[in-house]
């Protein structure tokens, strides 16, 4: 057992208890989760709940409601985070009801979905929430039975005092426990005693998903609610000038059409407002279809800027930036130029990737009901706390008067970090003085993106006479982003290392897209590493392991500056080598390998494919992962599989292009997302079992797979792939 101080959270727990009785949790009362339950199931529901702390309440019959604090975008934290609380509470998982917590910064820390950090950042506080409640239940039982607390044990929601033969379930002690002192310190379980963590637990929303229950933002319906849509500029750089909406306003079901100032002068914007446009046109009506029809009738005149940007412009400008000497190195070890000149063998390659749209299957949307002194918002948002801050400024309202509730999200991938649509919904609701649900069409969603930036990267490497890697250069550039993590591998493993970076400011709005930067640099680096290994005449896995060995035994520079642990990195590579029988000959099937570290987790992959004309058919992927303790293996594997398929799909098929500022892809007929036939036949995932505190899985499997794919495609075709998407649509058709 580990003893940990609870003082940091004691204050918030106390606050939460007061707040809870004030109706803070009303919007998501347990009754809401009873919908669709049978009468027999309802009979088992508690008659009374007792708030133990902000994370959980216990019913008089022992049923426990655990609040899942963070937004759910498909990463399955809504199951995993409560599992951690339940583990320390020592309750049976079958007796747990999970509810999505609303935004409440008094109780919860970091209610944000991003950076694969929910589990890593929440680990201690979730354990503490469960352990504190368990401690208070024990204290209540000790007082009731007049026995020493340390003699009371718990198991599956039952308190037992063996010597006196007394026992009670948590429900019987819940009332007394809720009045107990919050302890100064609590005992945490020894991980070897875990019985919920590291066992397969099905998605808590599974039944609702397969039966089509209203879970998502787009499914929300409230009394008197109208539908709203927006019209945004047709090209990046355009701004609103004037509006002729007379014929649209006369259409059936249409209530109003008007321009909106989403971000008026002087408003304090947050980073999370992303690509939000200051002035738009809103269409408000009774139904979605009516609004869609009216949108076509609205005539908007846009102010055209002097300069508009196109994909071709970026291609040239990014290359020019690569060729221009950097002002200062991001990291410099030894003397790259000298070593490169003196090297026995050298190689230089340039890689590129296009803009990408997030394309969550559920388009952007948000419910808002704004009155003079109150704003109620509900919808899919990865950054509710930041949305609240912007709303406070835009609506000129204190945050206490703004309630934000989070719905399950039909995908995030970073798009819903940028909640300008929530602000738009609030401004529209305020104007029409009615509750509204803002709905983006697919076209609105795809063409007003906060896109993955376009990138280019150049690598150079030099080998000595014994084929040792003695020089490594990397320069990365991107639109509004500089791409390079200078302290990641192979920094620390190469004596002469130089990293440079720069960015190009563009009108096209860009932002975080699943595994920002890593989603391109990993694949490029691992494809280049493959070529360097080939030049050295070495097996690609052995070549990488040699470098990790150097980083372990004779690191270059101060090892603390290196943003990775070479032993864990080598560990996943060795594991995937073993599991894929790397050294075995596989006939006509081509294989590629790749390894990467990002978002605090280590991933190595071997991908095996055959080419069907010029299209890769991935037969199998072996994936080794080190994310420390795996909270929920069945769902952890799902994240790994999803990241792999996502990476293969986007690198092979997807791109956003622009002409004079206008997006050239508007829907899934022109934007190719990977489909069932194109997905790998089989993915096998292996986790390193090391008991280290857990890290995240929403992102880390995506970046390296692009390298493994490129390397396998080279083995199959003899051709290297430097530019994404690897397969352009017209080639596939032809």
């Amino acid at each position, binding site marked *: 057992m580990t003893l940990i101080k609870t003082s940091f959270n004691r204050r918030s727990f106390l606050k939460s208890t007061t707040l809870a009785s004030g109706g803070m949790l009303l919007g998501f009362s347990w009754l809401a989760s009873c919908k669709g339950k049978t009468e027999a199931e309802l009979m088992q529901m508690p008659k009374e709940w007792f708030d133990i702390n902000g994370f959980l309440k216990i019913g008089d019959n022992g049923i426990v409601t655990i609040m899942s604090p963070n937004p759910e975008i498909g990463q399955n934290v809504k199951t995993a985070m409560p599992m951690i609380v339940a583990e320390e509470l020592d309750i049976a998982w079958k007796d747990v009801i999970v509810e999505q917590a609303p935004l409440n910064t008094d109780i919860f820390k970091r209610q944000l979905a991003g950076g694969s950090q929910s589990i890593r950042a929440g680990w201690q506080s979730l354990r503490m929430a469960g352990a504190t409640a368990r401690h208070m239940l024990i204290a209540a039982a000790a007082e009731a039975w007049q026995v020493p607390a340390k003699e009371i044990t718990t198991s599956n929601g039952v308190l037992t005092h063996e010597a006196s033969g007394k026992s009670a379930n948590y429900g019987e002690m819940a009332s007394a426990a809720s009045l107990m002192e919050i302890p100064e310190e609590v005992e945490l379980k020894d991980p070897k005693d875990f019985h919920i963590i590291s066992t397969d637990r*099905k998605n808590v929303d599974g039944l609702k998903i397969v039966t089509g229950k209203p879970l*998502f933002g787009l499914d929300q319906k409230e009394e008197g609610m109208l539908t709203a849509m927006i019209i945004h500029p047709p090209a990046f750089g355009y701004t609103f000038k004037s509006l002729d909406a007379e014929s649209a306003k006369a259409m059936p079901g249409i209530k109003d059409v008007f321009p909106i100032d989403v971000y008026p002068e002087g408003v304090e914007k947050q980073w999370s407002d992303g690509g939000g446009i200051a002035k738009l046109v809103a269409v408000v009506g009774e139904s979605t*279809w009516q609004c869609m029809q009216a949108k076509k009738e609205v005539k908007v005149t846009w102010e055209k800027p002097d300069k508009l940007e196109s994909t071709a412009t970026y291609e040239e400008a990014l290359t020019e930036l690569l060729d221009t000497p950097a002002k200062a190195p991001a990291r410099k070890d030894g003397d790259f130029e000298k070593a490169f000149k003196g090297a026995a063998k050298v190689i230089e390659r340039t890689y590129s990737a296009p803009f990408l749209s997030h*394309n*969550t299957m559920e388009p952007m949307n948000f419910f808002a009901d704004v009155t003079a002194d109150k704003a109620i918002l509900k919808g899919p948002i990865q950054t509710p706390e930041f949305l609240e801050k912007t709303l406070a400024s835009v609506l000129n309202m204190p945050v206490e008067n703004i309630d934000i509730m989070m719905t399950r999200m039909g995908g995030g991938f970073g798009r819903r970090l940028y909640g300008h649509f929530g602000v738009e919904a609030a401004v529209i609701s305020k104007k029409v003085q009615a509750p509204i649900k803002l709905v983006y069409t697919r076209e609105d969603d795809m063409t007003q993106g906060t896109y993955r930036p376009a990138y280019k990267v150049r690598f150079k490497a030099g080998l000595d006479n014994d084929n040792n890697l003695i020089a490594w250069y990397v320069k990365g550039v991107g639109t509004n982003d500089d791409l390079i993590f200078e302290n990641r591998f192979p920094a620390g493993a190469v004596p002469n290392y130089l990293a440079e970076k720069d960015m190009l400011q563009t009108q096209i709005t860009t932002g975080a897209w699943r595994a920002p930067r890593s989603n391109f640099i990993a694949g490029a680096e691992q494809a280049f590493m493959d070529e360097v290994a080939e030049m050295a005449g070495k097996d690609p896995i052995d070549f990488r392991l040699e470098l990790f060995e150097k980083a372990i035994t004779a690191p270059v520079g101060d090892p603390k500056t290196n943003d990775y642990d070479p032993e864990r990195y080598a560990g996943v590579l060795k594991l995937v080598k073993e599991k894929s029988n790397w050294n075995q000959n596989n006939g006509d099937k081509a294989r590629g390998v790749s390894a990467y570290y990002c978002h605090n987790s280590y991933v190595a992959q071997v991908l095996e494919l055959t080419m069907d004309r010029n299209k890769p058919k991935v037969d199998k992927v072996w994936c080794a992962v080190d994310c420390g303790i795996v909270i929920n293996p069945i769902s952890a594997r799902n994240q790994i599989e999803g990241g792999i*398929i996502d990476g293969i799909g986007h690198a092979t098929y997807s791109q956003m292009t622009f002409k004079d500022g206008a997006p050239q892809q508007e829907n899934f007929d022109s934007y190719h*997302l990977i489909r*069932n036939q194109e997905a790998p036949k089989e993915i096998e995932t292996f986790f390193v079992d090391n008991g280290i505190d857990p890290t995240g899985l929403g992102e880390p499997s995506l970046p390296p797979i692009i390298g493994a794919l490129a390397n396998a495609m080279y083995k199959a075709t003899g051709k290297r792939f430097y530019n994404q998407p690897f397969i352009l649509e017209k080639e596939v058709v032809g």
Partner: protein
Amino acid sequence: MANFSIKINGKTQELEVDGSTPMLWVLRDHLNLVGTKYGCGIAQCGACTIHLDGNAVRSCQLPVSAVGEKEITTIEGLSENGDHPVQKAWLEEDVYQCGYCQAGQIMSASALLNRNPNPSDSEIEDAMNGNICRCGTYTRIKKAIKTAVASDNAS
């Protein structure tokens, strides 16, 4: 506006709506059957898949005026309690991540098994190719369809 009488999930629904309105929006906005999802509006993603006389169709491309006497089944009507073999297989394999596309996936899969109870791998891929899953649950979708086939064969 016109009046329509449509058979949905075994019940006849009386509607007053513009005849060009796609069934997708009739279901979602007028009948509050929101399990059928909007994804693209142009029959490219499959999120809005429903059954029309047992066949999988994209409800975003089906005007209410074209339904006539045909019977519609939505995800809400596939089974009483989520116990259709395909739904059970989805639960068994824990297929979903975000879950948004899965009603459409399940409707396509159940229509496939209606007409072909024992599909081959390539028949599964063909039938499911019109349903995009942005989270990338394709390997689990394929596995779950096989699980549903196996459970049907066993019963």
